[in-house]
């Protein structure tokens, strides 16, 4: 870490370079943050969202609250331990916006209390994981897109709004080893149900009818095998346009498909992704192709990895029999809540009250909910116990895995009055061990 401490501005003032942004799965690691008297006063190189994240680091901070009343950190942690260790089927949920270190502890906690644990993938790219379980995946790190990809396809994804520097740093404008001119050396194909700011830059925009992505993949796979589809229009797209698209794809020396929730959360879900993977796999008999999910939260990739290395399974895991079991739907947070099978919920670094279907949120209102979060959110508003924490990547250190799995060290650039999630969850583990295991 390059720390340029400025004597003029006092010890708490400095410019920190190469900071990793803890917002989206891009984990841009070139951010410059200027700190003056313990406050972030300037942010350079980041996108608007990242800039706002750093500059507003002191706004809307969560506070320790217990059943509507202010409390101490010790009190809220003790109450969390009491609730979790007396629950019959507690649920631990979230994890995607915190560090690997905290995620590792969270799995241990879920195991000790014999509950279920799920992460935000189950309402996001969980279907991607299920598709990988069906068919594998040929993929690459983002630097390969930067170095090699002369054709990129964005499918059901609008990166200029969701991952604002993806085009710039990795996929479209980036100059790399074999792509010395950046944009000029690349062709961009965008497939989406509507025109977007991202599709405006495309060499070819393919507008697919809502929910018909699977048909398009199937048609492309047929064309690749030399089979002429019997229909003229497929998924709202003329076959000639699909042929044009396939020709572009086959002309690639190295191509990458980046796909978003336009595939995972529309009809067909994991079938769409499986079809996409199959197309890419088959393209590899002709030229090199990879495919990659546009992961949202900055460490959602890490959440799936930690769960996989500690339990064998990436999400929707249950410990009630003493060993990990995996069943999407059965042990997914939304399913468990909707069926009212859980009697307490610990939310770590996410906002299910804002993102879950209403039936699941209603169920949350009827059970004790503990929220661990640096910031106020809808979930902290409805939670019975709120445990504020330092924000990883801003006021706490930790590891995060980029959307392509590249692990990076997040820095602490300012102080927080609160401990990190990792420390809070460790305290809960100790508390539960005392109650349940006399540890």
């Amino acid at each position, binding site marked *: 870490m390059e720390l340029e401490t400025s004597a003029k501005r006092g010890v708490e003032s400095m410019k920190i370079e190469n900071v990793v942004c803890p917002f989206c799965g891009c984990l841009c690691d070139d951010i410059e943050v200027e700190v003056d008297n313990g406050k972030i006063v300037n942010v350079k190189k980041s996108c608007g969202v990242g800039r706002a994240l750093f500059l507003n680091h002191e706004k809307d901070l969560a506070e320790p609250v217990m059943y509507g009343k202010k409390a101490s950190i010790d009190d809220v942690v003790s109450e969390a331990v009491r609730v979790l260790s007396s629950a019959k089927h507690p649920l631990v949920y979230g994890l995607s916006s915190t560090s690997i270190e905290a995620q590792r502890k969270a799995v241990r906690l879920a195991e000790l209390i014999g509950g279920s644990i799920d992460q935000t993938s189950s309402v996001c790219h969980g279907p991607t994981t299920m598709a990988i379980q069906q068919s594998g*995946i040929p*993929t690459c790190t983002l*630097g390969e897109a930067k170095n090699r990809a002369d054709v990129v396809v964005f499918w059901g994804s609008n990166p200029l709004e969701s991952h604002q520097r993806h085009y710039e740093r990795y996929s479209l404008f980036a100059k790399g*080893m074999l792509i010395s001119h950046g944009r000029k050396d690349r062709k961009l194909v965008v497939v989406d149900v509507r025109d977007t700011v991202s599709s405006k830059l495309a060499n070819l925009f393919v507008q697919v009818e809502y929910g018909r992505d699977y048909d398009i993949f199937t048609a492309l796979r047929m064309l690749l095998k030399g089979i002429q589809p019997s229909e003229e229009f497929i998924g709202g797209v003329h076959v000639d346009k699909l042929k044009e698209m396939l020709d572009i794809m086959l002309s690639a020396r190295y191509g990458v498909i980046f796909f978003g929730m336009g595939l995972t959360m529309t009809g067909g879900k994991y079938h769409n992704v499986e079809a996409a993977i199959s197309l890419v796999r088959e393209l590899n008999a002709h*030229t090199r192709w990879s495919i990659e999910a546009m992961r949202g939260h900055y460490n959602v990739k890490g959440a*799936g990895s930690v769960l996989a*290395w500690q339990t064998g399974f990436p999400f929707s895991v249950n410990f009630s029999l003493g060993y990990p079991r995996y069943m999407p739907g059965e042990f997914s947070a939304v399913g468990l809540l909707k069926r009212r099978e859980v009697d307490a919920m610990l939310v770590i670094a996410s906002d299910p009250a804002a993102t879950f279907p209403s039936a699941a949120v209603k169920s949350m209102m009827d059970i004790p909910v503990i929220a661990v979060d640096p910031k106020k959110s809808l979930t902290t508003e409805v939670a019975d116990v709120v445990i504020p924490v330092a924000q990883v990547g801003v006021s706490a250190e930790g590891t995060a895995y980029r959307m392509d799995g590249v692990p990076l060290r997040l820095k602490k650039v300012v102080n927080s009055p609160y401990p990190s999630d990792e420390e809070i969850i460790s305290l809960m583990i100790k508390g539960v061990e005392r109650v349940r295991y006399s540890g």
Partner: protein
Amino acid sequence: MAKKLVIKNGMVYDPANGVEGEIRDIFVSDGKVVESMDVKNAEVIDATGMIVAPGNVEIHSHIAGPKLTVGRLLRPEDHIKDVVKAEYPLRSGVGFSIPTTFVTAYRYLLLGYTTLMEAAVPPLEARHALDELEDMPIVDKGMYILMGNNNILFSLLKDKEHDMAKDFVGWLLRATGGYAIKVVNPGGTDSWKWGKIFNSLRDETMWGIKPVEILKLLVESAEEFHLPHPVHLHTYNLGSPGSYRAALDTINAFGDYSLHLTHLQYYCYGGDGWPTFRSEAEKVASELRKHPNITADMGQVLFEDTTTMTADTPWQYRLHTLTNNRWVSTDVEVEVGAGIVPYKYKKSSVVNAVQWAAGLELALMLDPWQIFLTTDSPNGGPFFMYPEVVKWLTSEDARRDVIKTLPSSFRKRTFLEGIHRELSLSEIIIMMSAGPAKALGLANKGHLGAGADADIAIYKKRSSVADTMGSVYMLFKDGELVVDKGKVVSGERLGRFVRVDTGVEDKMLDDKVMKMFSEYYSVNFSNYVVEDVYFKNEEVIRCE
């Protein structure tokens, strides 16, 4: 006051010190073996009638890192047949071909292992491997850093900047916390990124250099830095008919250097296609015998449903097209890639049967100080089945029992039936402990002489070597009891992380390297170098 331990009256097997089954006492003070001591206040373990040996050392296994986790994620069907309950404070998990991290540690401990080497870490993703290794309690561990397809290295070689290239090698090892240099299909994994299958040491790759030059640079760098372990090599043309020629070619090219040839079984095949596939283990073994400076490990296959994973991405694509099994492939920018394909070795397949025989032939024709017991886990089969391999190495009858169940054409493609050798307990301990420790340059492992780490395994003596070595009765790690009566008893204690320090600091890299770094990588240089915080409980071997 020093913590003292005496293991009394055991039958001590310490092959590194020429001890074979002598009744001796072993003295331990503060986690180290000592020659003698005042036994007052010492804890005494009565090992009468039991075998006492140094803890085992794993020289080649895939246990931690991104490809393991993708493999785990890929195969729920592998996990559900082998679940592990939590027994506080031990963790739950799943086992079989790609166990969870905690279960990996527990199962290795139950086989008497106290040191594990993760065999293939992409440098860019070293932090991930380190995170997983931290979730592998009790055992000591280290990792090999993949370098045979590094584009910055290629570029330096092409420009004949050999000195900078060697510094780069030393820097990369230090910056990522590596213990040894790993090479997988040099030039081949990179060529696959260009859509080319490349299988040669002596042809030019897309970079205008030959893999033999890449290897020479790495082998010489390892010698010049005095690394404790030489280049750990998975050479070209793995697994194919005729692969024995790649082994002979590699041995001939580097016969004058120190080298470790890993999972050598996969390089013992003759024939010019699958129909004529046969074992040529004898040719490989006789060549290896002429080069005592080269060591190897078996990469034995078992007839199991397992998960193959390797940085040899073109081979994994080929395996996928051969089997139509699920295929994961990850190209890692600038430096390497990894592929995963589930695979079932079947007794009904004569190819698989030949593979099974080739590994055993190889081991039975060599000195155990030269070839070590591995299955290239999980590639040849899961490590917790090592006792099966021990059984075949130590019993001709056990081998015959398997051969009876194999296709009839097996006989004319192999010569295993002509080998009558049965390895002794002492020889197995060499293959699992003393040999790998020596090849790794781990001076305090693999023996029970004064100064050794008190990693001591106690086995109950049973009717066969395989049964004896099948599970450890008691295991001490640094003098602490970690397995008692065949159960792991130590909870979250963290073992040591062993790495080398070559002394090549960041500032020693020249502008050209830094320029390539900023142009080729998607992360900043300063965020590439692994921070000290990841090297928990480290032991640094300085080798400047």
